[in-house]
């Protein structure tokens, strides 16, 4: 940076100053630190997109801290303005650093290797002696030796200079350019992609249109016509859990046996497993969850079936203690509702009823019952997993609240004449349907980036020189500090140009001599 004596900077100069600062390596380093620091809280503080329940719990337990965190976006770090600011600056810094270097690199490719320096003895490795060959022959021999080893050679009057390892800077640039493409792929995916999930009970089906999703999010450029038409019938969901002593209860196998049809095609049997999603064109269907759905029948006091079918319950712990609500709004004279727990392997002890194993070895349904005057259908959405108790009173008999437990096949008679039958249970599976159109670009760019990275770290640029004259001199230097085999190369080249037992022209210095044309180069951008 040129300094001026207190002369005020013009706007253009100021912008130029900012640009130079932003694209300097020092700034890149600071931005890398900032990025690392800013990313860290997201792995320690609960994040809303990952686990909203834990965020709510955190705010409840630490109200003051929670409010502060919420205000500065610490519950959603990766969508916060300051995180975006850091990575955008990093991206600009990267592009600003890389573009001029691409120009420099292209110019370097067009230019032959540098002229032979005046004093080869000042290079980190050099030998000198009397050659057995005539000067011209020696230079010819040097040229053929160097060309065979894929050096770029420049012949001068009395000397040869050569350089190899251009791929290092190429790899370096390739790596950094690929990073831009990785980000472009991510941006593409988040603009045009979508992701939705749906819970499907065994025996039910899902068709890919917006109305069928339980939750759905899409990028700004998404158009519902992008949804590939397909239908999935979930016939059976198999879940196996560890029965042995070690890691008892751990998941072992999940398989959804399905039939699928694309568009109006005929159904084809298929399976979905955890690492084996289904694909329809660019759309993937993943298995991301499962649980239990008790199958119940509610018969009202008039003997009419008020509700019948499976009810999806949500698992609350690793042993699938599941919570849900059975609703019979059409029951008469009073509508009915039940708050229930489904326990796949039920145990009642001092902790109360809970499940001790995730598989359904001793399934039981624990409920209490509510009733109220029939309500007009309002169309107002309400949770299917919990009971809205407004206008409902809990059923009781002889002054005691009614609660009961049922095994499959059992029926309970409720005060007032209604019945609840726990007929059976089914499993449900949560399917995630997603389209990530930028994925091939992102992964392709990552592959290229890793290749470039390897080139930039493992290719060793090297320059070798031969000068003939009274004494024949051979010297070399490495342009990155990976001086392995430089002495060997210099000795071999010396032998090739006819120096019989080449002695070092001097003790090799540790640092390449301060010849400005041959300063050791920086390793990375």
């Amino acid at each position, binding site marked *: 940076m040129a300094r001026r004596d207190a002369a005020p900077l013009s706007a253009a100069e100021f912008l130029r100053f900012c640009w130079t600062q932003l694209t300097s390596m020092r700034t890149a380093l600071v931005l890398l630190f900032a990025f690392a620091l800013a990313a860290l809280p997201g792995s320690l503080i609960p994040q809303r997109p990952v686990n909203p329940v834990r965020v709510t719990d955190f705010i409840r337990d630490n109200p003051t801290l929670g409010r502060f965190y919420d205000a500065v976006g610490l519950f959603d770090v990766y969508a916060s303005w300051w995180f975006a600011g850091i990575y955008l600056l990093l991206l600009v810094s990267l592009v600003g650093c890389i573009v001029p270097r691409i120009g420099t690199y292209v110019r370097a490719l067009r230019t032959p290797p540098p002229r032979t320096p005046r004093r080869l003895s000042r290079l980190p490795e050099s030998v000198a002696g009397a050659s057995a060959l005539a000067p011209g022959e020696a230079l010819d021999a040097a040229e053929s030796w160097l060309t065979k080893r894929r050096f770029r050679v420049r012949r001068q009057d009395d000397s040869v200079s050569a350089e190899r390892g251009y791929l290092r800077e190429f790899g370096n640039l390739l790596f950094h350019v690929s990073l831009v493409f990785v980000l472009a792929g991510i941006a593409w995916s988040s603009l045009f992609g979508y992701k939705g999930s749906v819970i499907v009970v065994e025996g039910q089906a899902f068709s890919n249109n917006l109305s069928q999703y339980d939750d759905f999010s899409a990028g700004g450029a998404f158009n519902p016509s992008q949804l590939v038409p397909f239908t999935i019938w979930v016939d059976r969901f198999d879940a196996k859990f560890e029965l*042995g002593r070690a890691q008892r209860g751990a998941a072992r196998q999940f398989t959804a046996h399905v039939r699928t049809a694309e568009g109006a095609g005929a159904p084809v049997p298929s399976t979905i497993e955890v*690492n084996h999603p289904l694909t329809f064109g660019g759309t993937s269907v993943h298995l991301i969850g499962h649980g239990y759905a008790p199958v119940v029948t509610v018969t009202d006091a008039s003997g009419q079936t008020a509700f019948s079918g499976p009810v999806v319950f949500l698992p609350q712990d690793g042993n699938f203690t599941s919570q849900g609500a059975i609703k019979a709004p059409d029951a008469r004279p009073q509508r009915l509702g039940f708050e229930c727990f489904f326990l796949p392997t039920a145990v009642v002890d001092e902790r109360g009823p809970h499940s001790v194993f995730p598989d359904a070895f001793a399934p039981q349904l624990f409920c209490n019952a509510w009733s109220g005057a029939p309500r007009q259908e309002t169309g107002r959405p309400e949770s299917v997993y919990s009971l809205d108790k407004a206008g409902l009173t809990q059923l009781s008999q002889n002054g005691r609240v009614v609660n009961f437990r049922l095994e499959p096949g059992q029926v309970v008679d409720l005060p007032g004449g209604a019945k609840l039958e726990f007929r059976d249970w089914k499993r449900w599976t949560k399917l995630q349907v997603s389209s990530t159109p930028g994925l091939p670009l992102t992964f392709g760019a990552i592959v290229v980036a890793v290749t470039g990275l390897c080139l930039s770290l493992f290719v060793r640029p090297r320059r070798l020189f031969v000068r003939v004259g009274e004494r024949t001199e051979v010297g070399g230097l490495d342009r990155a500090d990976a001086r392995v085999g430089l002495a060997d190369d210099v000795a071999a080249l010396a032998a090739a140009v006819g120096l019989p037992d080449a002695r070092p022209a001097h003790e090799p210095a540790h640092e390449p001599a301060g010849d400005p044309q041959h300063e050791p180069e920086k390793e990375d951008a």
Partner: protein
Amino acid sequence: MTADVMGYYSFLAMVTSAVIYLVAFAAFSAEWASARNLDAGGHEPDAARESADRLRVDKYGRIGLALTCVGLLSHVAGVVLRGVAGRRAPWGNMYEFVTVSLAFAAAAMLVLAMRRGQRWLGLPTTLLLTIGQGLAVTVFYVDVAPLVPALHSVWFVVHIVAACASGAMFNLGAIASVLYLIRTRAEARGGVRGYLARVPDSRALDRFAYRVHAFAFPLWTFTIAAGSIWAEYAWGRYWGWDPKETCSLVTWVVYAAYLHARATAGWQGRPAAWLAVVGVVSFWFNFVGINLLVSGLHSYAGI
């Protein structure tokens, strides 16, 4: 042999390797302890005695290497038996990850010591191996068990082997960087004594650390990329800011900063070495802290 018996022998082999590494550490300690007179430059220049001293010092070093070899054999036997007992690749939980990663570290140390003449690595690496294997068999140990469905994938082999190998190299690199920090301070104070006199000078240490990190960094990049591809298959998203993912990225960024720092005026030398130390701390935090303290999709410790 039943799986239980094989699991037991595997455990026994791991314990044995920890003990042998400890003895190897003692041998390397004897190497530099006996070399102290040599490096200080004895007052009487007695050539015969000096050469006898040198032989003795060298003998301890070679004993250390031989013991490390034996320890590694037992260590590898433990890993293989564990795999046979579980009938799967033996890197499915924290205990298994530590043991496999340390096997990589031991193998890398032996190669570097015997092929590249970096025997100074023996002392710190056997210390790392002893502590690591010791912690593995006492704190991290869990019985052999099959894998959860999310791990039924070829990426289970690719992603985790790469993670183990890069972890091993980051640790060796950190050893070199820490020694670099200690040695540059000693050089500045003019008091390079004891073990420090037997490690390469600071410039060579810095270069060694750079090469090890330059090897580990692309491997770590690959680990994260492979994990991301696997996550797309298993969880339906290639990146979800899971605590383990985030911390891996932070580790990656710190090492990227290290590589940049080595090429930036004002950051070369000690600041860059400190970055390498921060990098390995973040790697360890990602492994121990995230596994045990934070719940996420990578919670596989099973402890």
